C-alpha cells in the first residue's frame, strides 16, 4: 500500500505525472481496498487544516468555549442548535413582553445559526455575529416574532468582510485560498457567502457586492475585485496584442488595453446568455467571477465584480489627476505660463528691468507649482450615446452611471441626423484626448445610420515627464536594424549611466541572466545573454506610480519569437526580477498613430480582431427576433428591436521623446551608435560593468501602473520614422 500512498501524495502535491495519475485512477477504480485507502488518506488531508487550527485555538485560548475547537458528533451539534433555538425563543419572549430579562450571553433575535464543521464564531448581540473561521448556516426564524414584525437585519463580520442580510437564508464561511502571494507569510483567507434564499450584501475594504438567491459572493482581504480585474485585463491585453500582431505583420502597433476592456465591460453589462459567455471568455474574466446556479446560463458572470474592480482601479489611477487641488494648480499654471510668455516677449522688445523681475517672479511661481504637481496627467472618460427614441432599461443606464460615471445617457438623433450626432461624439473624443484622437466615428450616409441606437465611448489620456529626462544634445541619427536585416537611421535618444531605472536580462527560455556587476578589464564574454535572449528596462516617470517598460530581444528578428511566448504572468515575473543599477540606454523617440477595426458585423459575416479571438456572437444580428444563434443584449432594453454590435473601433496615439511621454504629441527620433561614449573607465584590474540597453531593433513597450500592474498602453515598434 506504500506505493499507493506515494501516488496519492504526489497527486495531492501536484507533482504526479499523467502516467502516475492514470495508474492511480486504475488502482482506485479496480481495487476496493485501494479505494478505501485513498479515501482514508483524503479524509485525513481534508481534516488536517481544521484539526491543526483547532489545536492552536485551544492552546491560545486556554479553556474551550462553545465556539473554539471543540469537536462534537453531529447529534451534539443538533442539540446545540436546538438549545440556541430554545434560548433565542425565551429571550425573544421576554424582550417582546417587556420583562426585564438580561441574558448572560447575547442571543440572536429572529435568526438561527447552525455551525458547519468546526467554526470559531461569537454572537456579539441580537443581530451581530463575528465569524473568525469556518462556516455557518444562517436562516431567519420567525417563530418568536409576531406577523407584523419584520425579521431584523443581521450582520456577520469576518476578518475580511461584512455580510448584511435581511430575511435571507445562506451559508457563510471563511476559507483559505490556494494561492499565496509569496510577499508575506500572513495567512490569507477569503469570505464566501452562498445565498440559498433572499438577498445578502457583502462589503469589504474594496467595495460592496450584492447577491440574490443562488449566487456565491466572495471577498478577499487583500484584493477583492481589483485583483481579478487587473489579472483579467492583463491577460486580455496580451491575447489582443498577439492577435493584432498576427493581423499586422511587420507593422508598428499601439493600443490601450485598459480602454478596450472598460468599453467592452460596459457593453457586457447588457449581454446575456452565450453572448455574455463569449465576451467574458475573451476578456479573460476569472473563474471566481463566474456565477453558479440556474441563472448562470443567462447571466454567466458576476458583472458587479468586474464593474467594482474597474471602478476601484479608476479611483486609484485617475482620481489623483482629478484631485480638485491638482486641477486648480494646473489651471493656474496655464495662466502663469501665458503671462510669462507675454512678459518674455516684452523683455525681448524693451529689456525693461522691472519686467525682467516680474518674469522671474512668475517663473519662480511656476517652478513651485510644478514641484507640488504629481508630475503626470491621466484621465479617463466614459459616455453612453443613445438614440433618443430607443427605450433603454433604467437598470442598465444606472449601473453604467454608478460604476463608470457616464452621467446617464446622452440622447442623440441617429435616425434623422447622424451627422450632428457624429460631430458631438467626435468633439467629445477630441476634448478628452487633448485633441489627439479625432474622427473616431466614421462618415456614413444617413440611410446607413438609421438603425443605430447606441454608441459607447471610452477615452484615455496620459502625459508624463521622465523622472530623468534625456539630454537633447545626446540625441542623433543612429542605426536601427529592421527585422528583415536592413538598417535605417533613426533619431535615437541616449543617456549614459542612467541611474534611477531598473535593468534585467533574460535567456531565451525566460530564465534570469545574472548580469555581472564587475568584470575583468577587456572582458567581452558573459556580459549579456546569448543571441536568443532579451533585455528589459524600466524608465520611471515623475510620478512614482507609473513607468515605461521596454523589452528588446537581442536579435533584430527575435521579436516574433518573443511575442509567441510572452504572457502577463511571465512579464510580471521578469519585471519583478529587474534590478536597480546604472545602465546606458539608447532609445528611439517615436510617434505612432493607429486605427483598428476590432470587430465588424460585416453584413452577417462578422470579422475583426475580437471575432478572431472568439467574440463572434456579439456581432451576429438577430433575425426576426430569433436569438438562437445571434447576439443577446437584452440586458440593455426590453424592446423587440434588439441591439447587436455593428462595429468596435480603436484609435490610439503615442509620442515618446527626451522629455517624456504623451498619448498625443509628435516628435522625430534618430538611430543609436557604439556604447560607453563619455563614460570614464576606472584604473583597477576589476572594473565595474555597466550594461547597455540598445533598442536599435524592433521592440515592445508598455506604460504600466506599478502597484497594481495595470497595463495602460501596450505597443511595439517595428520601424520608427527614418531620420532626414
Amino acid at each position, binding site marked *: 500500500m*506504500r506505493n499507493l*500512498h*506515494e501516488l496519492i*501524495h504526489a497527486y*495531492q*502535491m501536484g507533482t504526479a505525472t*499523467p502516467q502516475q*495519475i*492514470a495508474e*492511480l*485512477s*486504475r488502482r*482506485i*477504480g*479496480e481495487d*476496493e481496498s485501494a*479505494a*478505501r485507502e485513498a*479515501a*482514508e*488518506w*483524503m*479524509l*485525513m*488531508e*481534508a*481534516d*488536517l*487544516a481544521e484539526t*491543526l*487550527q*483547532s*489545536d*492552536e485555538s485551544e492552546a491560545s485560548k486556554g479553556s474551550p468555549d462553545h465556539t473554539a475547537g471543540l*469537536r462534537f458528533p453531529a447529534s451534539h451539534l*443538533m442539540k446545540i442548535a436546538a438549545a440556541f433555538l430554545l434560548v433565542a425563543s425565551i429571550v425573544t419572549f421576554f424582550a417582546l413582553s417587556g420583562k426585564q430579562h438580561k441574558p448572560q450571553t447575547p442571543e440572536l433575535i429572529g435568526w438561527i445559526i*447552525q*455551525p*458547519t*464543521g468546526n467554526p470559531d464564531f461569537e454572537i456579539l448581540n441580537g443581530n451581530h455575529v463575528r465569524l473568525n473561521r469556518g462556516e455557518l*448556516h444562517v*436562516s431567519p426564524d420567525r417563530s418568536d416574532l409576531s406577523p407584523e414584525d419584520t425579521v431584523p437585519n443581521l450582520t456577520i463580520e469576518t476578518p475580511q468582510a461584512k455580510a448584511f442580510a435581511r430575511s435571507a437564508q445562506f*451559508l457563510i*464561511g471563511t476559507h*483559505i*485560498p*490556494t494561492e*499565496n502571494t*509569496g510577499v508575506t*507569510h500572513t*495567512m*490569507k483567507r477569503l469570505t*464566501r457567502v*452562498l445565498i*440559498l434564499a433572499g438577498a445578502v450584501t457583502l462589503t469589504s475594504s474594496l467595495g460592496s457586492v450584492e447577491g440574490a438567491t443562488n449566487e*456565491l459572493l466572495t471577498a478577499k482581504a487583500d484584493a477583492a475585485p481589483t485583483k481579478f480585474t487587473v489579472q483579467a485585463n492583463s491577460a486580455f491585453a496580451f491575447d489582443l496584442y498577439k492577435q493584432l500582431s498576427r493581423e499586422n505583420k511587420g507593422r508598428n502597433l499601439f493600443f490601450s488595453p485598459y480602454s478596450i476592456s472598460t468599453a467592452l465591460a460596459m457593453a457586457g453589462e447588457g449581454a446575456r446568455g452565450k453572448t455574455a459567455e463569449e465576451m467574458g471568455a475573451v476578456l479573460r474574466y476569472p*473563474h*471566481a467571477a463566474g456565477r*453558479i*446556479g440556474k441563472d448562470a446560463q443567462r447571466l454567466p458572470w458576476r458583472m458587479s465584480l468586474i464593474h467594482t474592480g474597474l471602478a476601484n482601479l479608476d479611483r486609484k489611477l485617475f482620481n489623483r489627476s482629478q484631485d480638485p487641488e491638482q486641477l486648480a494648480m494646473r489651471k493656474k499654471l496655464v495662466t502663469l505660463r501665458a503671462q510669462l510668455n507675454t512678459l518674455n516677449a516684452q523683455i525681448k522688445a524693451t529689456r525693461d528691468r522691472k519686467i525682467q523681475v516680474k518674469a522671474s517672479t512668475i517663473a519662480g511661481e511656476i517652478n513651485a507649482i510644478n514641484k507640488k504637481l504629481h508630475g503626470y496627467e491621466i484621465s479617463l472618460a466614459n459616455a453612453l450615446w443613445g438614440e433618443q427614441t430607443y427605450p433603454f432599461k433604467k437598470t442598465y443606464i444606472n449601473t453604467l452611471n454608478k460604476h463608470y460615471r457616464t452621467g446617464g445617457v446622452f440622447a442623440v438623433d441617429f435616425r434623422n441626423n447622424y451627422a450632428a450626432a457624429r460631430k458631438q461624439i467626435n468633439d467629445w473624443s477630441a476634448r478628452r484626448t487633448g485633441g489627439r484622437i479625432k474622427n473616431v466615428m466614421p462618415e456614413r450616409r444617413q440611410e446607413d445610420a438609421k438603425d443605430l441606437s447606441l454608441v459607447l465611448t471610452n477615452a484615455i489620456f496620459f502625459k508624463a515627464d521622465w523622472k530623468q529626462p534625456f539630454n537633447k544634445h545626446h540625441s542623433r541619427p543612429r542605426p536601427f536594424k529592421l527585422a528583415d536585416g536592413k538598417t535605417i537611421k533613426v533619431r535615437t535618444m541616449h543617456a549614459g549611466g542612467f541611474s534611477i531605472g531598473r535593468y534585467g536580462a533574460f535567456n531565451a527560455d525566460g530564465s534570469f541572466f545574472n548580469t555581472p556587476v564587475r568584470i575583468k578589464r577587456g572582458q567581452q564574454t558573459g556580459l549579456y545573454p546569448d543571441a536568443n535572449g532579451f533585455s528589459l528596462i524600466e524608465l520611471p516617470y515623475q510620478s512614482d506610480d507609473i513607468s515605461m517598460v521596454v523589452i528588446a530581444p537581442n536579435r533584430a528578428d527575435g521579436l516574433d519569437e518573443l511575442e509567441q511566448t510572452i504572457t502577463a504572468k511571465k512579464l510580471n515575473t521578469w519585471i519583478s526580477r529587474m534590478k536597480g543599477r546604472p545602465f546606458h540606454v539608447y532609445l528611439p523617440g517615436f510617434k505612432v498613430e493607429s486605427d483598428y477595426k476590432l470587430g465588424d458585423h460585416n453584413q452577417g459575416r462578422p470579422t475583426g480582431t475580437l471575432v478572431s479571438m472568439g467574440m463572434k456572437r456579439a456581432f451576429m444580428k438577430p433575425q426576426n427576433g430569433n436569438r438562437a444563434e445571434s447576439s443577446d443584449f437584452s440586458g440593455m432594453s426590453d424592446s423587440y428591436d434588439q441591439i447587436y454590435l455593428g462595429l468596435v473601433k480603436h484609435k490610439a496615439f503615442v509620442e515618446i521623446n527626451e522629455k517624456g511621454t504623451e498619448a498625443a504629441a509628435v516628435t522625430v527620433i534618430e538611430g543609436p551608435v557604439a556604447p560607453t561614449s563619455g563614460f570614464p573607465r576606472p584604473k583597477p584590474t576589476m572594473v565595474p560593468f555597466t550594461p547597455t540597453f540598445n533598442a536599435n531593433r524592433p521592440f515592445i513597450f508598455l506604460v504600466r501602473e506599478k502597484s497594481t500592474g495595470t497595463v495602460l498602453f501596450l505597443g511595439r515598434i517595428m520601424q520608427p520614422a527614418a531620420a532626414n
Partner: protein
Amino acid sequence: MTAKPMQTIDFPGLWVNAQPIVRSLILGAIRNLHDAEDILQEVARSAYTSFHRYDPSQPFNTWVMSIARRRIVDHLRSRKAPIAALDEKAIDSLIHAHEKLNDIALARRAALGQCIEELHDRGRTVLTRRYVDNHPVKDIAAELDTSAHAISVLLYKVKSRLAQCIKGKLVTTAEDAR
C-alpha cells in the same frame, strides 16, 4: 419554495453531518482548494434547492454524494480543470469508499487530533505551514533551510505516520468497545 417547514430545518442538520465527507471527496478529486470550495458550495446549494426530491428512505449522504459526483465530473470536463486528473471510474470508487467511512469520520478526526499531538515538533511545524498557513513547499523549504524535495518527502512521511496512527487508535477503540 415548496418544501415543508420541517424539511427546511432538517436539511441543515443533515448537511452538517454530511459536509466533512463530501468536502473530503471533492478536495481529494479536485485538489485545488479554491475550486473545491466552490464546488462544495454548489453541491450545498443544489442539495438544498432539490431537497424536496430527496427520498428519506435513502441515506442522505448517498444522495448528496451523487450530486457531488455530477459537479466533480462537470468540473473535470471543463476547460478550467487541469488536464490530468482522476477518471470517473476512480471517482465512483472513491464515493463508495467515502460512504463507508461516513460512520467513523468523526472518530477518525478525533484520532487525528490525538495523533497530531504525538508528532515531533518539526513534523507539526511542516504540517502547520502547509495546511494552516497554506505556504507553498518551496517557501517552507526556504524557511527551514532545506530543499523543496526534502519537505515533500517529510510531508509524505509525516502523513504516513499519521495514517498508521489513526488506524491504530481506531482498532484500539473498537477493541475497547467490545
